[in-house]
């Protein structure tokens, strides 16, 4: 933590209050403060640093060291609006400075051209609100490049024939290949597919103040002790603090965006760590609270002008939730891969990014990656989510022998794919359940579009083919099941030209409130093929440029 951060008074009107410090909020804080604006970032979680991170899987995964706290922040779930929601945990997101980018796996490929124009290309999909973006890949390309160079992304340009055009190579070479990657690459090539070194938001070369990856293997779910993972915390927040114009205010839980009588945002009301309430005044509000908490906050901020939720004249706030489809096929080999070393993913392929819908009989596309992302307890606790084959005894000598033999000899093929937007799939507020601050709890309504499940199963078949080609001793998986838990929180305040069918315009400005901007997973119109963080960060860099232009033109005051 930088000590010479400014300390703004809440009564002092700063230029921007940014709500959330994750993949989008961290970038916006850096860009806006670098552009000369006074910025306060309100982050609901604590300000943790490398010294707080640990490989203790109980403390991190079970105690939610880095993530939302289900005891304080209960959720409810229902499949359709006709159902009564029941209390259950529905999501995990980063709840600390840096947000989810602190604990994510760091898969970091770009969306392709098709993701922005798919509705025009494939036409209407029954049961889906699939739409084109108001921007294209070409609009975002400079910002993808900016992300790669500014935060540090390792990869190999031109290695995948399916990659979209790029204006610059990666700033650093790919991370070292893992055994899972070698197996994957050789088998995929036998099948005529095109594996390539996975682009990862993890440093393969050191940068000032940040180490290159030390291959500890604790990426998914964990914070990086050496700063190699290019989270907002490691790669953006320090630059924001260095400007001397940006204050990061942790343990600040925003519960309302306040408007004046003219319908303009005047700031954000929040609880501090002692549950005292404050209003941070600002000329404009940028909400980057994630695809679940951003719509929830807008709904909590309903007022006379916006009785159905702030900036919700379209009724689209919280709707069209997309989670990405996919799943895991696991394989066992004769020799040790020791794939717990390194990082998660070293090879990926995107041969199936654009499937011929008439041929396969469903909408969608995706890819496969080679990975191992188990922690020891997670691996050994048997069942479909563990690392052991389904016929393994759950206890006893057979169980002990299996964990002893398999832990170093197992890898996964992770299948990642599209998720169709469906109007009823949503995040909103529960009418009955309250959180520890007395606010209505987050409610998730979700039922996968049938095509998402078909796509998942189709990709699983490719995973099995790959393991056959690789000569795996054994491989297994389970049919796609309906999802009830979310980590990719996408599409819930979608971007669009038409105020009737979208919440923000291409500048991330809400159609309804001129000085209120939204930028995070909620802005996405389509889900890509999985792994959205790169696109969220690119959007944040672009949003910062657009917002800066508007502010300098005097449009926000």
């Amino acid at each position, binding site marked *: 933590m930088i000590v010479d951060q400014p300390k703004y008074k809440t009564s002092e009107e700063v230029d921007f209050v940014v709500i959330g410090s994750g993949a989008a909020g961290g970038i916006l804080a850096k860009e806006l403060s670098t552009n000369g604006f006074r910025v306060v970032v309100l982050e609901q979680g604590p300000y943790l640093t490398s010294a707080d991170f640990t490989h203790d899987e109980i403390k991190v995964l079970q105690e939610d060291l880095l993530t939302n706290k289900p005891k304080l922040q209960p959720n409810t779930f229902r499949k359709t609006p006709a159902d009564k929601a029941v209390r259950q945990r529905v999501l995990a997101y980063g709840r600390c400075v840096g947000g989810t980018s602190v604990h994510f796996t760091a898969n970091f490929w770009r969306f392709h051209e098709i993701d922005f124009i798919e509705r025009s290309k494939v036409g209407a999909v029954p049961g889906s609100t699939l739409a084109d973006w108001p921007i294209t890949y070409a609009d975002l390309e400079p910002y993808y490049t900016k992300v790669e160079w500014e935060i540090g992304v390792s990869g190999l340009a031109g290695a995948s024939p399916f990659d979209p055009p790029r204006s610059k190579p990666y700033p650093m070479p790919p991370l070292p290949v893992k055994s899972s990657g070698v197996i994957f690459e050789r088998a995929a090539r036998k099948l005529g597919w095109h594996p390539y070194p996975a682009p990862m938001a993890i440093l393969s070369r050191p940068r000032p103040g940040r180490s290159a990856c030390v291959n500890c293997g604790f990426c998914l779910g964990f914070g990086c002790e050496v700063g190699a993972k290019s989270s907002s915390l490691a790669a953006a927040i320090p630059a924001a603090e260095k400007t001397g114009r940006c204050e990061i205010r942790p343990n600040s839980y925003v519960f309302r965006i306040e408007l004046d009588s003219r319908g303009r945002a005047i700031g954000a009301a929040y609880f501090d760590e002692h549950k005292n309430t404050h209003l941070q005044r600002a000329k404009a509000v940028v909400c980057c609270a994630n695809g679940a908490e951003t719509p929830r906050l807008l709904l909590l901020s309903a007022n006379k002008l916006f009785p159905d939720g702030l900036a919700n004249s379209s009724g689209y706030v919280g709707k069209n939730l997309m989670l990405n489809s996919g799943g895991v096929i696991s394989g066992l080999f004769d020799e040790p891969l020791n794939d717990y070393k390194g990082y998660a993913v070293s090879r990926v392929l995107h041969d199936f990014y654009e499937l011929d819908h008439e041929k396969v009989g469903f909408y969608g596309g995706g890819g496969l990656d080679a990975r191992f992302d188990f922690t020891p307890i997670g691996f050994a606790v048997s069942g479909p989510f*563990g690392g052991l084959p389904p016929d393994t005894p759950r206890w006893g000598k057979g169980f002990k022998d299996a964990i002893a033999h398999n832990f170093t000899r197992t890898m996964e093929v992770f299948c990642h794919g599209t998720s169709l937007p469906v109007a009823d799939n949503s995040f909103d507020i529960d009418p009955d359940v309250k959180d520890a601050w007395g606010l209505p709890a987050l409610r998730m309504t979700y039922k996968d579009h049938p095509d998402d499940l078909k796509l998942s199963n189709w990709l699983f078949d490719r995973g099995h083919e790959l393991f056959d080609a690789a000569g795996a001793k054994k491989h297994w998986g389970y049919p796609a099941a309906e999802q009830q838990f979310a*980590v990719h929180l996408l599409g819930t305040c979608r971007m669009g030209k038409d105020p009737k069918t979208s919440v923000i315009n291409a500048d991330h400005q809400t159609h309804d409130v001129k000085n209120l901007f939204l930028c995070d997973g909620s802005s996405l119109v389509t889900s890509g093929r999985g792994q959205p963080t790169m696109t969220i960060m690119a959007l944040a860099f672009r949003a910062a440029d657009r917002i800066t232009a508007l502010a300098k033109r005097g449009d926000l005051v």
Partner: protein
Amino acid sequence: MFRDSNRRQFLLQSVTGFSAVWISAQWPALVEAAEHGRLEAQSAAQKRLEFFSPAEAIEIDAISSRVIPTDETPGAHEAGVVYFIDRALTTFAADAQAIFRDGLPELQARVAEVFPQIAKFSGATPEQQDQILRSFDKQAPKRAVRAFRPSPGAETFFETLRTFTIAAFLLDPDTRGNPEGIGWKLIGREREHVFQPPFGYYDKDYPGWQPPATQEAEKDGAKK
């Protein structure tokens, strides 16, 4: 659907054998209990029981030793799992005490039913013990086990004990639990947290990235 997130959710639900609510409320104490278990296992002089009677502890130790048995390598007994569970039940898992209070006698009742000549679970042979436990393991195939009266209490008890045993055995030894890294040694997970490539058998001779055309040309060349 089996994604990262769902696996994590499953872990949240399964590691403990209780409920997600229970876990989130109790993990700090679970951590404490793991640390306690480690210390107890390291120092025989400090082995104290706070929940189980010595006689009950012998039974719990016997059951967890069937979950991860001791053979040519150490098992649950050597990892001090019984002390971990004892500590758990007097701290964070106090609300699970009933599971143990009701479940253990139910389990013993079945011992008496199946093997009238044996007084306690710990007095049975390993084969007899496994036969008893299989009759409670709902998810395991019921091989060679005759139909018993249902015993949900004992089933819950066994599932709870099973998951506790695995968690206590595989915790990061550099933080808490898993004394001397017994569990990690068994699964082949080195205790270091910094590694250099090559990592495993399949990447040790990797020649470096080659575009497919090069490889295909090489393959063609080799054929000729």
